[in-house]
């Protein structure tokens, strides 16, 4: 058997109780597009699946106290089409809209995208640029994990889906003037993991002609969605110019460490693409270069 039982609790408390009873052999499942396949291909195993998509309160997108909140059951299709997400976090809407294929987007959740802990996840990368946090509830209490701390290794999340329930993603509603963008390079236009993806968030000050805050997240150039911090610092350092954009892109290509991959391409090419796509994206956002 790939799993022995499947339950759909009506509350987070019930979900936690089921997990506890399963003593580590239970697993939270949301959309299931990753997990179902992993279990059937015997890359991981579980006895009990606890489906959280029916839990009230996990299915919404909202705004509260300056945070944008996305419930654990929200699908990529829902996020991509949501007016609030599209307006407040364009890069996230774009990333969600380019995952896999329509059918995958209809099932797969953003939370699942984070917990699958893949470096190139198209929702997780923009969420990283947005400095999102994940709310995790367990029998001992609840905590908020910054998204960057949610990754232990490729395919291993810091969130233990056999003992905890991740209920919500949140990120600060960006100030007026913040622009975000998503980019993606892939071998074809659907049903394909990216060779490179990235999300950029820029808050530029038109009076000082400087970037007050830059956030750049890239994948798959490291074991998890990668914050190009040196590149961000560069962008924030001096007045905006085409040379600044080029330099920031160059630095990001240096800091990123993609490896030569049979399917994705060589390391030199992938680094060159980091540089190219960042230069183009940031240039477009700033209307320079």
């Amino acid at each position: 058997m790939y799993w022995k039982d499947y339950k759909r609790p009506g509350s987070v408390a019930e979900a936690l109780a089921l997990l506890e009873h399963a003593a580590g052999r239970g697993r939270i499942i949301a959309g299931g597009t990753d997990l179902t396949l992993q279990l059937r291909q015997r890359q991981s195993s579980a006895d009990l699946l606890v489906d959280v998509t029916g839990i009230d309160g996990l299915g919404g997108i909202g705004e509260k106290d300056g945070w944008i909140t996305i419930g654990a059951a929200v699908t990529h299709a829902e996020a991509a089409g949501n007016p609030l997400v599209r307006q407040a976090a364009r890069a996230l809407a774009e990333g969600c809209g380019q995952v896999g294929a329509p059918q995958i987007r209809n099932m797969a959740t953003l939370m699942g995208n984070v917990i699958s802990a893949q470096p190139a996840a198209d929702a997780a990368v923009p969420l990283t640029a947005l400095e999102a946090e994940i709310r995790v509830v367990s029998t001992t209490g609840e905590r908020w994990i910054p998204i960057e701390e949610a990754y232990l290794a490729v395919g291993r999340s810091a969130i233990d889906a056999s003992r905890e329930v991740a209920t919500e993603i949140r990120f600060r509603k960006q100030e007026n003037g913040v622009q975000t963008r998503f980019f993606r390079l892939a071998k074809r236009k659907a049903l394909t993991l990216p060779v490179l993806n990235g999300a950029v968030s820029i808050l530029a000050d038109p009076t000082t002609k400087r970037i007050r805050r830059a956030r750049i997240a890239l994948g798959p150039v490291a074991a998890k969605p990668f914050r190009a911090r040196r590149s961000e610092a560069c962008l924030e350092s001096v007045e905006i110019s085409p040379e600044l954009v080029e330099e920031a892109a160059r630095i990001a290509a240096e800091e990123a460490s993609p490896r030569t991959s049979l399917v994705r391409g060589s390391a030199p090419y992938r680094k060159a693409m980091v540089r190219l796509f960042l230069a183009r994206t940031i240039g477009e956002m700033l209307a320079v270069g």
Partner: protein
Amino acid sequence: MSKESCDVVGCSVLRVDGPDKLTGKACYAGDIAFTGMLHLKLLRSDRPHAKILGIRIAEAQAHPGVVAVLTCRDIPGTNRIGREIRDQNVLSVDKVRFIGDPIALVAAKTPEAAEAAAALIRVDYEDLPGIFSPEEALAPGAAKIHPNGNLLMEQSLLRGDPDRALQGADVVVANTYRTPMVEHAYLEPEAGVARFDGGNLTVWMPSKYSHFDQRELAEAIGLSQGLVRVVNTTIGGCFGDKTSLSPGYYAALAALKTGRPAKMVYSREESFMATRKRHPFVIRYTTGASRDGRILAAKIEILADTGAYCASGPTVLVKSLIHAAGPYDIPNISMKVTFAYTNNPVGGSMRGLGVPQVAFAHESQVDIVALELGMDPFDIRVKNGFRPGSVTATGQKLGDSVSLVETLAAVRAEVERIGTPPSTAAKRYGWGVAAMFYGIGAGGRSNPGGARLEVDDAGVFTLFVGIGDVGQGSSTALVQIAAEVLRCRVEEIRLVSGDTERCPDSGVTAASRVTYIVGRSVQIAAEKMIGLLREAAASITGVAPGSLRLDGGFFLSSEDPSRRVSVAQAVAAARGEGIPLTAEGVFDPEFIALNPVTGQGAPMATYAFATQAALVAVDTGSGEVEVLSIVACHDVGRAVNPDGVTGQIEGGISMGVGFSLTEEILLEEGRIRNAGFSQYFLPTSLDMPETVALIAEAPEATGPFGAKGVGEPALLPTAPAIVNAIHAAAGVRVKELPATAEKVWRLLQESERP
């Protein structure tokens, strides 16, 4: 049902198999289930080259739900298969030659039990040196993959004196081209079901050649051929494969040994790993031309990786030889084509059989020569292109059905109409063109079609043909041809296909031969049927048979318009006189086999011609190539079903887009690293260009109503057109497919260095 009121041939008649496919009623082999049916799973080799010292099956046999675990010792028959050389086993005996070679078969009550048990089988291997390229295979001292060594076959062609001609040429262009291993990737994974009824075995499977599979399966498994019936299920795509060793064979073996019905469906990964592939080619090509654009000479050397077994290697070799010089009048040609065994996956028949590979080479060469001469790429092709009466590389004088130049003109006009968007530094646009010719039929040997028509008391006709529709629309086209001759509607003809018990052997669904060869056989059968019925109608009416004409179900007399006889009446009269109302048609195109040394001969009775042009956008920063538009014009002789023809062209184009830009089997020491759709990239709907598919018709006198074929031609010019477009757009020449973004990027980087 016809869309417009018109005669049947030439009409886009709705597909006869359409409604069932659209409603989920069509039965594919994987849909069949019988009570008590066993599910099968193969244990396959995970080594590329090894001796089998022992196979331990006890643990697997003991697994719950397992009914039998079979090895080669359990096969009463020859255990040998192969379209050309029987060098492959149903279950390996003492050696495995590629990763995926089948070793043992588990039959169990559920697919899960079969799979779990197969994982418990232990094989003791003694690894042998693995050989992963044809160069390695042919090096002296290389480990022998087969007892007779690693050379499968080598053949030459010589016409005129190419060395001398090259010396006198104003322009000489020499390049090496490489094409990858490619996967058929039909959406339906291989499947088969077998069941004994009394002593008779029926095997249901998607087969492109039921009669061949019946013979081979019976002999290999060890059954009397007369007791084996192969019934074609709906075929979910074939593109050259889905014949010879397939799940149906294993189902037959399991049914024989267990007495129970048995079913096997390959997983997608298994379909990638274990089934045949397009041969990777290395092509060394030298072209010489005069200043005024005449191609004077071509010297071509091809080295192909035929993989672990022979499969259709020889046929692919011969087709490559026939077509490698392209559709051009070249008086001096030499070729050497060499196919070598390796421990890579098996090379087999895939749409075009070597010609997509050589077309990439010959169309790149012609483009490069044109550039050197400052000549327009259309003009050089018009100047050198075949016309009626031209002589091919094999010395064959072409007939009248040659309209290559018309296809060039049609495509050129459309390209000019569409135009080219203005390029920027970051995004460059360009058009590329490519032409091709493709012989219809097996090539250099007999390959008869066969058809049989019967008529019942009510006057309803039934057409029996051995080949099944692989998706290309053959069922509809054949029924249209019959209906045209019989002057009735398509709905009034029943079709039975692919059943070895009821249908004649029509040869294989391949080589783009069905419309031409089987269609002609159908036409012959239908004409004979009319002859039989006309005699009977004449005897009823008392008028001369010659004055009777069949139309709309009645024989009408020109002598006496008041006399008319229905088909049913004619049938009754014939039966009354004891005349059997069965008409058979066999058409075997004429050919002259190729001389083994000079390659000279007339291997095919007719050829199809085509031109395609591609508009691409090259992102000069990333190397990404987007195909925006493809214009295609194909000379099909006569389009029996125009929508069917354009549908084939569009499908061929999508396969060509994949071949040129994204598709390649990635091998590491004989192991396929990308054995799935997420890492082997077929074009999706978003990757397809806008297409303009035009039909040209230069009627082939020996074809049914002038028809030739289009199935494989559809694919052939696409990749070279795209590669030529990349050069036109970005100034870089891709010589190794696929033209991935990274490859184009590297070429652009290199071209920028001083």
